[in-house]
């Protein structure tokens, strides 16, 4: 059965081999590389501190001199556990952020590949076992971008990491009942143990096993020689060759339907009230930034100014609205990356009018809106959204007349757009 697998290999002439060795192809994304080495650092410290924590004679699994050494480095044993917890929390946050933001582009595809175990992977494992343990000469079935062993290890890590995080948090912050903490310890220990077993093979392969040497550098700068890809990751190489490897131009993301967007905005509004106790708002952000700027030049006059003085206080910018404002800006940038809008400077305008006209009208509109928001005590998002959601009469009135004004405006200015 093993021989037919061989046929699938395209025979290569020695010249082609030499040529392939020179060419390089891309293996890992930047994010993956960063995450990998960050993981390495975290695991290094956590293993050291974690192992050094357990020094009671029933459970100690590292030599005494090691625990002694670590305790000396950290001074009091209290510092060891504090570091262990701190690093653990940071690690958990990074992983969660990665999972949240990198879901579509990085995590989902890798997970699909890892968990997609094929016959070849098993065949690879079997033959690997035969070669190492029984010393037989074997031929390996063609492998995808991760070979059988790597997939197995990745599965173990993918399953064990959440377990480690949850049990870690239970222990660190004494959550729920002592009985649960008791089990959390050994589950934590077992999970880490499994990963470490995989890790030892992983490290051995990367550092000591010559044929895999290139793979290590692949993880450093992201490129491997084509020959290496051909030899070790044949399927990946072929896909790369036929251009199949690119995620086949992810289907263009449709923009979110306005209804869904509205619902999300409502949810955001709800959580804004729940978490901060205040609704959304932006005009305050603009207002406070202006007050801060003026204040920088003429603090006294701003302070005594009947209107601006109100915002002066000590830290005009020290207000949740300012942070919300910056948050909105950053958020939109991020959304840009996730969606397929490209980042270009442009002025959106109607066909009939020129850019300059567009800008002038915008300034006039801005002034009118600026006055309006101050008199009304809030801009569209605060009055209509926040006000409306708490059924303040002002909010609803504002919303109604907003639409009425909108339609009238559209009626008068439709000529500009046609």
């Amino acid at each position: 059965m093993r021989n037919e697998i061989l046929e699938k290999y395209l025979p290569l002439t020695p010249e082609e081999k030499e040529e392939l060795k020179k060419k390089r192809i891309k293996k890992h994304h930047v994010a993956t590389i960063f995450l990998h080495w960050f993981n390495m650092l975290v695991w290094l410290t956590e293993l050291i501190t974690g192992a050094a924590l357990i020094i009671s004679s029933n459970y100690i699994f590292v030599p005494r001199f090691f625990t002694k050494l670590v305790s000396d480095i950290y001074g009091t044993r209290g510092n060891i556990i504090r570091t262990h917890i701190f690093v653990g929390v940071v690690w958990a946050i990074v992983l969660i952020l990665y999972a949240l933001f990198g879901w579509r582009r990085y995590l989902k595809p890798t997970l699909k590949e890892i968990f997609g175990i094929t016959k070849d992977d098993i065949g690879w494992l079997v033959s690997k076992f035969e070669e190492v343990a029984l010393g037989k000469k074997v031929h390996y079935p063609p492998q995808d971008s991760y070979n059988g062993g790597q997939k197995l290890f990745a599965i173990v890590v993918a399953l064990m990491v959440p377990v480690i995080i949850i049990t870690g948090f239970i222990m660190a912050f004494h959550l729920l009942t002592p009985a649960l903490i008791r089990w959390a310890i050994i589950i934590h220990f077992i999970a880490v143990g499994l990963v470490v077993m995989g890790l030892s093979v992983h490290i051995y392969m990367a550092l000591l096993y010559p044929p895999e040497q290139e793979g290590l550098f692949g993880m450093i700068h992201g490129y491997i020689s084509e020959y290496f890809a051909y030899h070790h990751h044949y399927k990946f190489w072929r896909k790369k060759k036929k251009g199949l490897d690119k995620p086949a131009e992810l289907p263009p993301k449709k923009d979110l339907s306005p209804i869904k967007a509205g619902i999300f905005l409502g949810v955001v509004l709800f959580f804004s009230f729940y978490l901060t106790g205040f609704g959304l708002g932006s005009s305050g952000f603009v207002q406070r930034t202006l007050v801060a700027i003026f204040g920088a030049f003429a603090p006294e006059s701003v302070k005594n100014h009947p209107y601006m003085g109100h915002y002066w206080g000590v830290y005009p910018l020290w207000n949740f609205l300012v942070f919300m404002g910056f948050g909105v800006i950053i958020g939109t940038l991020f959304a840009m990356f996730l969606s397929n809008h490209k980042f270009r400077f442009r002025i959106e305008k109607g066909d009939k009018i020129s850019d300059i006209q567009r800008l002038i009208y915008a300034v006039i509109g801005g002034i009118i809106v600026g006055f309006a928001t101050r008199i009304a005590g809030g801009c569209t998002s605060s009055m209509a959204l926040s006000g409306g959601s708490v059924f303040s009469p002002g909010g609803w009135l504002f919303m109604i007349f907003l639409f009425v004004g909108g339609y009238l405006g559209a009626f008068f200015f439709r000529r500009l757009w046609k």
Partner: protein
Amino acid sequence: MAKYGMVIDLDRCVGCQACMVACKAQWQTPEDYFRTWVKHIGPVQIKDEMVFTSYVGQCNHCDNPPCVPACPTQATFKDTETGIVLVDYDLCIGCGYCVEACPYGARFINPVTKKVEKCDFCYPRLGEEDPACVKTCIVSAKVFGDLENKDSYISKKISEGNTYIIATKEVNPGPNVYYKGRRSKIEAIIKNYPPEKKDTLPAKIWSNVLRPFVILGAGATFIGSLVAFLFQINQGEKEGEDEE
């Protein structure tokens, strides 16, 4: 250097539980939790004698305390200067292995601080005054002192004989709280509240199954990779050699 211990004279003790309240007043333990306890036994017939006594107990600060190895992070340790088993609250994660391991049940998890709590012979009061329970015991049944110093009052009390420890052949962690009084009372206590060695299931799994497995596993992988490395070197295999 000292080794503090206590002698409890069950013949004198009338079971009035003043020690329990004094301890609670001193260390504000939560509602139904006590660091020291008085458990009434009897009246019950032991052999041909009627016995009505109370098991006055607390942490015995044993010589080889089963709770110390039971604590994974070694938060609890026997203080070498005073021989008192103390707890380093930074390290305690409230798992309760030690609570199960203690044959006398002298430890509990404090629901407010979520960490273990036990009698520490009023460690902060050491030197100035006796522990709160010793001081308030209305019949002076409790005596506290340094066991190593031969002419201390406690050593004399013990040398008077008829002094026992609550321990059995199987479970004898070397407690440093001695009990005086009629033999029938000690038997009644041991019959009703025998010190038993009980470890939590996860602790047992860890120490008996996991630990050997890990050491074995680590050893095996180390040797395995060593052998594979040597095997590989003497093969003289060149980098990137391809057999097909």
